[in-house]
């Protein structure tokens, strides 16, 4: 059991459907009968999803928009709870579900590093130890003491990525965050991910539409489609099947 980082066993996740109450009391009263019925209706996003990720793996999740990839990551991060089934995560989760989530626009880059690091589950002391290497990796330079609202989106992204990757992640969750940054920074990111691939201590889960990244940096891939696991295995095979299904329709 100890070599498993994440395990999902028959996980079902549904979301509420918004028709009734959310339209306010007026709509609710006018459509009371249908509102009551819809109130109990929930959209199923994931149905009986089971899989395991081993410790130290670089694991990719692919699929079309809206099939539940981000929901999967949210479940792993503990931000969402499953309606049925069981999820086990061994290790401290470092989610980067959205670039700069938890940043405060009026605080400086430096203070945001500390804020974000502590939100990720590290003590302030630990964050301060890594402060300089984060600043260096992020390439923000002299702007680190400026409020982050003045940053370009690229700088924002670099800082967010630097924080989660440098702060000794155990289970790193990346949601579509690599498409940003200039070529040099992206190469640095790939180098870091390559480093994690060989490290048994860091499990990386990557949600992406960049199939090239999946082939280049991941050990295994999960294709999610129609609310469930369509395929799981070697990235080359999974990407081939995925391409076959959706590229031929052009």
């Amino acid at each position: 059991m100890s070599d498993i980082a994440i395990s999902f066993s028959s996980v079902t996740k549904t979301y509420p459907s918004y028709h009734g109450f959310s339209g306010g009391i007026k709509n609710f009263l006018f459509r009371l009968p249908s509102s009551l019925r819809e109130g109990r209706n929930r959209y199923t996003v994931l149905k009986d999803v089971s899989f395991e990720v081993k410790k130290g793996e670089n694991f990719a999740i692919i699929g079309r928009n809206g099939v539940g990839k981000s929901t999967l990551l949210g479940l792993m991060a503990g931000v969402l709870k499953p309606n049925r089934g069981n999820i086990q995560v061994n290790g401290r989760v470092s989610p980067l579900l959205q670039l700069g989530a938890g940043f405060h626009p009026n605080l400086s880059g430096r203070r945001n590093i500390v804020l974000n690091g502590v939100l990720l589950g590290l003590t302030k002391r630990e964050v301060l130890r890594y402060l300089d290497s984060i600043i260096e990796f992020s390439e923000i330079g002299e702007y680190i003491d400026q409020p982050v609202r003045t940053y370009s989106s690229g700088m924002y992204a670099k800082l967010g990525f630097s924080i989660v990757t440098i702060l000794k992640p155990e289970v790193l969750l990346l949601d579509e965050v690599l498409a940003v940054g200039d070529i040099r920074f992206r190469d640095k990111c790939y180098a870091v991910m390559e480093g994690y691939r060989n490290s048994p201590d860091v499990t990386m889960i990557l949600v992406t539409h960049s199939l090239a990244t999946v082939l280049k940096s991941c050990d295994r891939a999960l294709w999610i489609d129609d609310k469930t696991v369509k395929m799981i295995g070697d990235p080359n095979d999974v990407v081939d099947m995925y391409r076959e299904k959706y590229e031929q329709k052009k």
Partner: protein
Amino acid sequence: MINRKRLEWYRDLLLVLLRKDLSVRYHGSVLGYLWSLLNPLAQTGIYLIVFGHYMRFNMPHYTIVLLSALFPWQWISNSIMHGPVCFIANPTLIKKVAFPKAAIPLVANIQDMIHFFISIPVYFAFMITDGICPGISSIWSIPLLSFVTLATVYGLNLLIGSVNIFFKDLGHIVGIIMNALFFGSPIIYTLDIVPVQFHIFIKMNPLAPIIICWRSALFNGAMAWDYFGYAVLYASFFMLMGIVTYSKVKWKFAEAM
């Protein structure tokens, strides 16, 4: 060992969030922290004119009487009025970052408490100017009442903040109720001018007992123990309700926002 590190992390989490809130709150305003003093002072000025001069409330040291209840009320009302939005005002923190969300209202309420602490020396300055000596018992009564007040507003925040995610009308209701509770508490008047048969309504008002205790501690230098009992009762009730409600629905926060 694990637990000590966990505790250190909880402490750091609160400190970092608190420091963020404190530096962000008055960001860009010239007077900054002074606003948390100017608000109750301006209110006091208004009540002084309306009730002290127009309606000729004949009460010695009316300014100090007002201030001794208005400064704590400022804290209580700021914290409670923020309650409905304490979670929904932070969508990315709720949806994208994994940490105990109960820390968000706690930090906001502690922040209001700190602003209240800043106003205490100002209150004592007014008191001394008016020729009254602050009671020595403040040394222990202020921390004690602060703790009970914090528990009351934090419990209410957990309760209102959690419910408001699913029932957004609550925010509007809270505004009206707070207005009623303000006039229903001995703030612009004192408890002894309220006819005894109405004291039951004062006791039923969940915020009146703590306000009575505050005025008694700050103005009379004594503890109103009978009302302190009610204040502790309300604080425990709201803490319990808040914690139960929050832990029941917190898993739905991210998907409902």
